[in-house]
Each structure stands twice: as structure tokens, then as C-alpha cells.
């Protein structure tokens, strides 16, 4: 083979691999990405039942009902709309009423969001970033969400201090 042929083989091979990779990526992007919505966006967009998406918002206080066989129902709200969610399994450690949550799943025919994953990826202020941004965008963000969490921590620190002085 001449130098030129060798080079062409190499370049051809490289382009082939790259082409396959691009095809794979485009195909995967079409089928396997998941969009993020808040309850009000769900109401506006009329997402069809069975289409997977991520739902984010705050767990409505007082809405968490634990049933038989680890079934849990709760409502996710973003201030202007709320959506009932069912989930079967163990909720993450940081799941609690009034705090932010992100759930992945799809709507069923009755308009209830059936979650198969509830995400626990919170930062130290217990607010998933998507949820915080969405709430801010819709004007429902209260600056004290983050502050409250901090304050709670400080109060606990104070309690712990008192506890310590008692034990001493």
C-alpha cells in the first residue's frame, strides 16, 4: 500500500467510527432523554399518559399517606398547581413534607403521576436545583427557603450545645 492509501484507510476508518457514534448519539437523544416539568407545566402542556418525565416541586404538607406494602401517595405542588403522585418502595432519607422533590415516572390514565424513582439529590439546603429554579421562574420562590434550612441547622446546633453542657 502506498502512503496515500494507508492514510485514506485510516481516515476512512476514523470517519466510519465517528459516523456510527453520531448516529448512536442522535438516536439515543431522540429516545432516551427525559424532560423536567412542574405541576403547572404538566397542566399547561397536556403531557400524554405513559410519557416519561421528571416532576419537580414541593411535597405538599399533610399530603403524604403511607399505605400497605410500602405504597406512598403524596402531592407535589409548585404554588399554583399540584399533582398527586404514587410511589411504591422506600423513599430517600431526605424526603420530607414541605421540602423539594424530584420524581421520575409517567402519568396514568387517571392523571396520577406514577413515580418509579424519587430522587434524593439535595444540596445542604434541601432544595433540588431544578425545583428552586422552576419556583423562582414562576415567582413562588421565597428567599427564606434556603434561609430556613440554615436556621434550622443553627437551632439544632444550639440544641446540641445545650445537650452537651447538660451531659458535662
Amino acid at each position, binding site marked *: 500500500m502506498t502512503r496515500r492509501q*494507508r492514510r485514506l484507510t485510516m481516515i476512512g*476508518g476514523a470517519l466510519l467510527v*465517528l459516523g456510527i457514534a453520531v448516529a448512536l448519539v442522535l438516536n439515543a437523544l431522540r429516545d*432516551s*432523554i427525559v424532560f423536567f416539568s412542574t405541576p403547572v407545566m404538566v397542566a399547561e402542556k397536556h403531557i400524554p399518559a405513559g410519557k416519561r418525565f421528571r416532576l419537580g416541586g414541593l411535597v405538599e404538607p399533610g399530603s403524604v399517606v*403511607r399505605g400497605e406494602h410500602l405504597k406512598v401517595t403524596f402531592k407535589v405542588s409548585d404554588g399554583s398547581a399540584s399533582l398527586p403522585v404514587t410511589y411504591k418502595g*422506600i423513599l430517600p432519607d*431526605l424526603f420530607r413534607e414541605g421540602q423539594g422533590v424530584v420524581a421520575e415516572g409517567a402519568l396514568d390514565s387517571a392523571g396520577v403521576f406514577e413515580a418509579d424513582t424519587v430522587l434524593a439529590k439535595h*444540596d445542604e439546603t434541601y432544595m433540588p436545583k431544578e425545583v428552586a429554579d422552576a419556583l423562582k421562574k414562576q415567582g413562588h420562590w421565597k428567599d427564606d427557603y434556603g434561609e430556613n434550612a440554615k436556621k434550622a441547622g443553627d437551632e439544632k446546633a444550639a440544641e446540641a*450545645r445545650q445537650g452537651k453542657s447538660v451531659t458535662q
Partner: protein
Amino acid sequence: MIAEAGHYALVLALGLALIQSVVPMIGARTHDVALMNVARSTALAQLLFVGLSFLALVTLHVTSDFSVTNVYENSHSLKPLIYKITGVWGNHEGSMLLWVSILALFGGLVAVFGGNLPLTLRANALAVQAWVSSAFYLFILLTSNPFLRIANPPLEGRDLNPVLQDPGLAVHPPLLYLGYVGFSISFSFAVAALIEGRIDAAWARWVRPWTLMAWIFLTLGIAMGSYWAYYELGWGGWWFWDPVENASLMPWLAGTALLHSAVVMEKRNALKVWTMLLAILTFSLSLLGTFLVRSGVLTSVHAFATDPTRGVFILLILCLFIGGSLALYAWRASSLKQGGLFAPISREGALVLNNLLLTTACATVFVGTLYPLALEVLTGERISVGAPFFNLTFAPLFVPLLLALPFGPMLAWKRGDMVAAAQRLYAAGIAALVTMAVLWAWTRGGAAFAPLAIGLAVFVIAGSLSDLAERCMLFRVPLSVALRRARGLPRATWGTVFAHAGVGIALIGIVCESTWNTELITTLKPGDVAKVAGYEMKLDDIAQRQGPNFREMVVHFTVSEGGRVIGAMAPSKRNFTTRAASTTEAALMSRGASQLYASLGEPSANGGIAVRIYHKPMVLLIWFGPLLMAFGGFLSLTDRRLRVGAPKPAKASRALQPAE
């Protein structure tokens, strides 16, 4: 006082880095040996001062000095000593300080062990290293100073994020950073070579040990992080395709490609331009990883920082170094002479294929990680790209890579013989087919994918072993001769065998775990028995216990198999009072390479508790594979060819230093 001293030491280190980034370069231009040697002393002095600064922060954390913001926010006087120390890098400021400390450590190592390098190359490389250090010192001092004081010192700290209070934190970030930052050396050498406009096979020989070292640490760091996530997060996953994980996987993929292309450059003086590019890209991806994790652009357990000035600052550093080095590359690379012709079917050709597939796989991870960010910036739409995306893109690219892997070492340099290589892989191919057939028969009705993938893994492992058998002529000469030949093989050959076999072993673990994993989620009361994969787990009692800075609920299980008690498991749920947060501590029991995994959920009203029990077959192989790869890397690193064979600079005649 200690805080101020630590701060001052950091400022001094910045000063030294600034000198180091200019003076040696002038020296290299004007061929002034004295100026060039400045690099060596400043690199060592810099290491000393950053070391002091780091020690100061450790001291502040250990002595619980809550007048320092960083200590107040991340420590607690009741925290166990080990977490007081590891908590130093369990937060943004401290982990950046660890980052620059390791950067300075590598600079110092080049200064000490770089005696065999040409003086100009060493001076230039250390200067480039100092540019990176200076940028990061400025970043720390201007946006993330760990030594800030609080006006009214509180009595108690806010404690470390409970998830991070684990021995994993002691090992994972330092290993990962040793890997990430270690690639800065190959970057600095590449940029130095581009500045000089001169590059040859010897360059690859100098750079390879450093790249190999960084790669070993990164491999261990990623594996360690994966195991940590597996046992700490409580749902038994070991890889989530989380952007933060991808951030460490991308430099690993590029670094693996770099290791292989540097071999071609060293042996055959070919692929020079490409190797330069890979060296630059690998460290750029490390910087990108630092940006993704440290700027807080991602939602992740790792992103503590939400301060936008930090993000913008790191983005600037990122653009400056990646843009600058790529521009320099575009300008100078064409002047590098290409050498070493080779046929497409040859050892070089196989390594090119390896590089092509690894970098393409890296590119798909890059797209999957950054596409959501780009889309959000452009359209405001939020999407998540998860495991399905990567299974559809990353996995198909790894199949040809693994298929081709055993052929590479069998081919000769320059022009290889495919038929001969295939003949030598006969046994490996048969072993793979037999494995597939047996598994297929055994799992009738199961997924066809698993037997195929395990067959592929067996092919990789058996292929590596047959390479070894070929080289020591096993079965063709008497056993004693073969053993003598095996002992005489270069360590790098053994390293290749172990590293390649490690890939196959990890693949077996991955496939077994994801295909035959059994999961049971249920509510149990004391006295109840759960049955998982032939094991019976009896819940004995639910107890409360007080830890140093947490309360925990421990559930005791007795595990038996076929009526015979084989041990006990005690998963727990910890409540950290200070942060009002809880963590799940899973209990693990290893049975061979498989594991039983138990973690707890919420207590139920009727006195029971929700538990999650998994049986994970062959799961330990997932981490044993990378360990083997790292061991292979270590063997190669100790190969005498990598140090004694390094060409000497024209005038120096003293003994060459090992590069470790």
C-alpha cells in the same frame, strides 16, 4: 494565628508560582542555566508553602477552631478525629486547597526526579505547571479562601454533611485528585514541547511514567468512588451516569487513550501530533471536571458551591488553558515532523483503533453530560440524560474495542499478520464460545445479552492469558523453560496482561450484577423472615444506639442458608442531630464475589420497618477489575525499561533517576 499563617503561606506560594511561571521560560529562551534552574527551587519551595498552608487547615479542623468560617460550616467538636481530618477536603474551599497541594506535589516530583530531562524541557514544563498553579492559587485566594475568620466565633460548628462522614472520604478525593491533577504533568510537557517546537520519541518515554501514575490513581479513585456510592447511598447502585461521575470518567478514557498512543510514539516515533493533542485534551477534561463539580452548575451531592463568581472564575481558567493550549497546538503542531509509517493491520494500527474508540466513547459521554446544560442555556428547557442514553451510545462503542483488544498485543509492529494473530487466539475464542453456550443453556429463557457479554469478557481475559502463554512458549517448550521465560518477560508485558484481564473481569461483574441482581423491598417485624436468592434473613430486633454525633437505629438480622446460620447483618439508619439529616448505613455480607446487601427505610406504624435486601451476584468483580488494572499499571511503572532505557541528555552522564 494558624489561620493567618496558612493564608500567608498560600500567598507566598502564589508569589513563588508567579516567579516560576516566568523566569525559567526566559532562561530557556536565552539558554541561561541559572535562570532555568530557578524552576527547580521555586517548585520545591512552592510545595513547602502549600504543604504548610494545607497543614494549617488540617490543624484548624482538628482543633475545632470555629472562629474560622470553613471549620464552623463543616465541622463539629464531637466529630470523630478521622472525619475532622477528612472533613478538610469534604467542602469546596478545602478540596480546592487539596487540589493545588497535589498540583504542587507533582511539580515538586518533577523538580526532584527530573534530573534526566533536558534542561530546557524541564524549565518550560515547570513554568507551564506554575501557570496552572498560579491560576488556581488566585482562584482560592480571591473566591474560596478557606482561612476566613468569623467576627463572633460560635461555640459549635454545623457539622459535616453526614453522607460524607465515612472512611470513603479519606481515600476517594485524594486518589481522584492525584489522578486528575497528575495529568497536568503530561499537559505541561506537551505545552513545553510545543513551545520548543521539538519533540521526539524520548519525550514519550519521559512522559509515560507520569501519565501512567496519574492513570493508576484515577482508576483507583473512580473504582473507590463507585464502591463508596454503592454502600453509602443505600440503594445498591454503583454507577449512575451522574455528571460528576462522568466528569471523572472522561479524563480516564482520554488518559487511557494517551497511555496507548504514547507507546506508539515511544516505540515507533509515530502519532506524535495526536499524542500531543491527547495530552492536552486529557488535562482539559480534568479541568472541565473540576469546573463541573466546583462551579455548582450541576445538581449533585458533590456540588457544594452555589456561588456564581466561583463558577465564572473557573470557567475563565478553563477557557484560558484549554483555548490557549489548543491555539498553541494549532499553531505549532504542523511543524512537528511525522515519522514511522505503518500498515493499517499492525500493532500501531490496533492502537490507533483503540484510541479512536476510546476518544469517541469519551465524546459520547461528553455530549451526554453537557447537552442538558447547553440546552438549558439555549432554550431554558430542562432535560435529564440518564443511563438509557449511555447504554445506547457508550456500550456499543465498547463492544468493538473489547473484541479488538486481544488482537492488539498479538500483532507485530509496523506490519502485522491478522491470520497469525487469529490463530493464536483460537483457544481464547473457543473458551469464549463455550462460556456463551453453557450460560445460554443454563439461563434458558433469559436475556441473550448476558451470555454474549460474558463470552466477550472471557475472550478478553483468555486473550490476555494466551498472549502471555505465547510469549513464554507455554506447552511448546518444557514447563521449566516456560517458567524461566515468564520470569524473564519485561514487567510491562505482565502489566499489559493484568490490565487487560482486569477489563474483562470488571465486565463480568457488571453484566452479572445488572442481569441477575435480586431485589426485595418489604416491611418486616421482629421475628419475620425474608427469603432472597436462597438465603433466609431473620429480623431479630430493632435497637437504638447513640454514636458520637448521631443517634442510630440498628436492625439485627441473622442470615442462614439452607437452615444453617452463616452470619449476622446489621444495617442502620443514622440521625445526625446537628444537620437534622439522616443517612442509611447498608450492611454487606460477601459470599465469594457475590454480596448480600441490606438497607433500611422508614419504620412503619405497626412496629415493623421497611427494608431493602439485594442479592448481587459477582458484584465485587466490578471493583476487582479496576484494582487489577491499576496493579497492571503499577507493574509497568516498575519496568526498568521505563527508567534506565530513557535516553540521556547529551551532556549529563550520571545515573538516571526513577520517575516515580
